[in-house]
């Protein structure tokens, strides 16, 4: 009990004094996940808009695949990325295994289906609102997609935040492809797993507090976006 207390007080101390290790790991986590988020959003959001406005023959299949991918265990994604990036794998020559880039790739694969599905839900709703008007105004497919992406920006940000939440808290895949190498690929979740295993509760808890803080911040943003969805001024 007293050991736990000591761990918690030291963890708080680490956070408030901005401990160098803690800050380094947090910044790396943010860098990896934000990069993955940008790439994933660039793929998922236009895809969601296309799925909402176009009726092409592979549309249903694409939606089914996205839903199936969403259910894929992240650690399996990690395994697949590992196989592809490993020295004997198809992309082994790139030497990406155990680099932050590999972690970004894994996170992108994990959150693209999630972001695309959530975004598709809201854009389809928006499209049914806008359908008659945009048909009447004789818009091109491209204009329809741009209009939905712009007018759905709050919902899309919500989808992106959900992706961020999932990626920053994910441990299995990035442990496999990143290797949790100190000063190189160690991020919040893998560091927590390691420090806990070593019995170093203070740093593990300190990193945990940071992670919880990020998760709470993301959820507050999602909540606020939901409230201003229809009548917000930006």
């Amino acid at each position, binding site marked *: 009990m007293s050991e736990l207390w000591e761990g918690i007080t030291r963890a708080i101390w680490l956070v408030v004094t901005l401990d160098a290790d803690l800050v380094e790991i947090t910044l790396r986590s943010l860098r990896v996940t934000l990069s993955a988020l940008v790439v994933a959003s660039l793929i998922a959001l236009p895809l969601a808009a296309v799925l909402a406005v176009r009726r092409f023959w592979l549309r249903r299949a694409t939606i089914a695949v996205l839903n199936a991918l969403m259910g894929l265990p992240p650690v399996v994604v990690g395994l697949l990325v590992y196989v592809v990036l490993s020295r004997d794998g198809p992309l082994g020559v790139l030497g990406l295994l155990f680099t932050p880039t590999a972690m970004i790739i894994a996170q992108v694969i994990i959150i693209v289906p999630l972001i695309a599905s959530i975004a598709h839900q809201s854009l389809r709703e928006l499209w049914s609102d806008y359908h*008659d008007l945009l048909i009447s105004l004789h*818009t091109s497919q491209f204009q329809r997609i741009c*209009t939905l992406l712009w*007018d759905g920006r*709050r919902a899309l940000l919500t989808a992106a935040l959900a992706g961020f939440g999932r990626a920053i808290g994910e441990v299995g895949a990035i442990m496999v492809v990143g290797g949790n190498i100190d000063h190189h690929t160690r991020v919040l979740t893998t560091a927590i797993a390691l420090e806990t295993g070593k019995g170093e509760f203070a740093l593990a808890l300190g990193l945990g507090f940071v992670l919880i803080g990020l998760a709470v911040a993301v959820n507050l943003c999602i909540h606020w976006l939901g409230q201003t969805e*229809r009548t*917000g*001024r930006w």
Partner: protein
Amino acid sequence: MSLLPMVATGASVRRQGKVLIGPVDLRLDGQGVTIVIGPNGAGKTSLLKMLHGIVRLRTGSVSWNCPVEEARERQAFVFQQPVMMRRSVVDNVAYPLRLIGVPRRAARAEALEWVKRIGLEAAADRSANVLSGGERQKLALARALIRKPEVLFLDEPCASLDGRATREIEALLQDAVAAGTRLVMSTHNLGQALRLANEIILVARGQIQEHRSAGDFFAGPETPEGRAFLRGDIVE
């Protein structure tokens, strides 16, 4: 070259095995206001959407005095439930101009003129979704008129509006007519038909029952539905 005459020949629309409207043979020409009347479910909305070209024809054709692609850009449609885009009031009105490549500042400046005209200046930068029913209808009308359409379709624009909002809308419509816009508008309101119509189209059971000048129609409708409308009866 004028967009009119519009000619519909044997045009019909079907959904789920049910004929919503048609076959319709109709010629739209000249100037002024055509009012479409008829009981609920008669097919007024279907007729307007069919002529505007936003529903797929099952049979026949609707042709304008210009290529099909061009025709739609020279018309506009105000829906019964106006669509409020998730943008500010002024950006809603500016949207049709942005679509045809007018730069943002110029489009907003012109939209602002319209926003002033419809009396929503104070709400110009607010979200369109906070507007009342009458304000939404005025916004939809301004958005439809901003590209100066030659033909404007309106689907019961004053249903569920109070007298003041109706008067404001009618004033805007009369300005548009004076500027040369041809109106085709459905309504349930006998008074509105009397005030605005140059010609009347009476729709019932998915068919055009009468299509005559307003003077002739109001002097003596030929069909039971027409007589019932003039009496102000509830028509089933």
